[in-house]
């Protein structure tokens, strides 16, 4: 991958709203080049989307996030992919990772309540044939997500003018 694309990605990773024209100025390129590079990366699914990082806990309508450790039996010819697909197709599922170590899949789901999450696990997830066991952990507090600390920014503590 060329250098421009890598620079674009590093910048967008921090600010998904950065417009092509502005990126071009900041990276010493042209708007045309940047737009083409972004379009290519979108087509190649290198850039997979532009979601916004939200701290839902700051809103009153509480939601819960759970991390579920799942042990599965890999299926002949399909490994873990088939069962992972069956899991990630549920809208409630936010992330699915294949893991090394003591269990196989990490499933992160968000629900309106603990009961909703519990019923998802007991009614949808656990009964799947390939699934051997699940262990559900509820998230109590998010401190940092995707490199961003979820608290109010501290004020600039530098003296305002210095040599």
């Amino acid at each position, binding site marked *: 991958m060329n250098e421009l694309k890598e*620079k674009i990605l*590093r*910048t967008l990773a921090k*600010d998904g709203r950065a417009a092509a024209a*502005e990126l071009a*100025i*900041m*990276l*010493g390129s042209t708007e045309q080049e940047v737009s083409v590079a972004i379009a290519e990366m979108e087509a190649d699914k290198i850039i997979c989307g532009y979601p916004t990082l939200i701290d839902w806990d700051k809103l009153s309508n509480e939601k819960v996030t759970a991390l579920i450790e799942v042990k599965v039996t890999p299926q002949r010819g399909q490994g873990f992919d088939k069962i992972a697909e069956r899991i990630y197709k549920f809208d409630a599922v936010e992330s699915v990772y294949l893991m090394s170590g003591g269990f196989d899949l990490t499933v992160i789901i968000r629900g309106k309540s603990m009961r909703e999450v519990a019923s998802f696990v007991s009614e949808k997830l656990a009964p799947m044939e390939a699934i051997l066991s699940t262990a559900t952990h509820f998230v109590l507090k998010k401190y940092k997500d995707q490199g961003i600390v979820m608290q109010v920014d501290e004020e*600039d503590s*530098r*003296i*305002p*003018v*210095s*040599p």
Partner: protein
Amino acid sequence: MRDPLNKTIVDIKPSGIRKFFDIVSEMKDAISLGVGEPDFDTPWHIREEGIYSLEKGRTYYTSNAGLKELRVEICNYLKRRFNLSYDWKSESLITIGGSEAIDMGLRVMLDPGDEVLLPQPSYVSYEPCIIMAGGKPVIIELKGEVEFKLTRQQILDACTEKTKVIILPFPNNPTGSVMSRAELADIVDVIIEKDLFVISDEIYSELTYGEKHTSIAEFPGMKERTIVINGFSKSYAMTGWRLGYAVGPANIIAQMTKLHQFAIMCAPTTSQYAAVEAVKNGDSDVEMMTEAYDQRRRFLIHELREMGLPTFEARGAFYVFPCIKGTGMTSEEFATKLLEEEKVAVVPGTAFGDSGEGYLRISYAYSIDKIKIALERIARFVKKYQK
């Protein structure tokens, strides 16, 4: 009662920045683009080493010249990054920021009446330090037409038989100007021919955008006549830790160490332990910060040019130096009015020497969002006054 004060000290005029600082401090909602330090916090792994050293009870003096481990690592670093070879034991000294090294370097080299070539605009402390060391500053006015670079002719014109030292302040605060390898090569023989000693203040050496920084000490015949000054403040965002260093010929470093021993004792121990971590494992932090600065730099230059302020492509430090002569105002008038009318603080070029007249120092050690807000206000201001 007799006058308790030393006349030389009293006669030194206070920094032009001070006055400005007092006004800005009063203004609560002002946006400042006036700082001379990074906006990043010191990377956590560096802070953590400092904390750890305190937990382990490393709360005592170090040797006068500084921790062996730090000096060894600094020499490794200078070799790795700038192809400079120094013996940690006899050719390095850890100081309280680059500032102390400037002061000590001048004091050990100057006899009363010795002349020091001082290119300006440049950092505010060189001139007073020269005077306090008993020397005589001879100002070389760097020119906007050549992007505030130092030329061999300027050195030749300023030299007298009393000239002993030249300060080389590149990458430059406040202009952001750098001296490329080729431009340095062009002045080396003059320096040797005139038998000058160099204080090369390379505190911004990691912050260059384009050609990598070259130290003048790398040229044949220069190491033995150059004190290289560097430090942790700018490259690793460690201003408050107050830690810098000087490397140079053993005979000069020995005298600087003696002065440092009597005046300072040693640089802060906690800072020294943190700095070991910085210089060993901080390369990726520097890379990350430099990339962010570079983006802001391009953005700022582009926008300033768009609003009609001629701005040269500054390739070092974290400052740009736009020309505001088109408004008919002096630097100080412009900066004061901008602060009053639009509540944006920038530093008048004249705070760094008379040759900064007609220019402003704008720092980009701020988030891009903050820079954008400030630029909108500056654009409105310029539109109102541009002739």
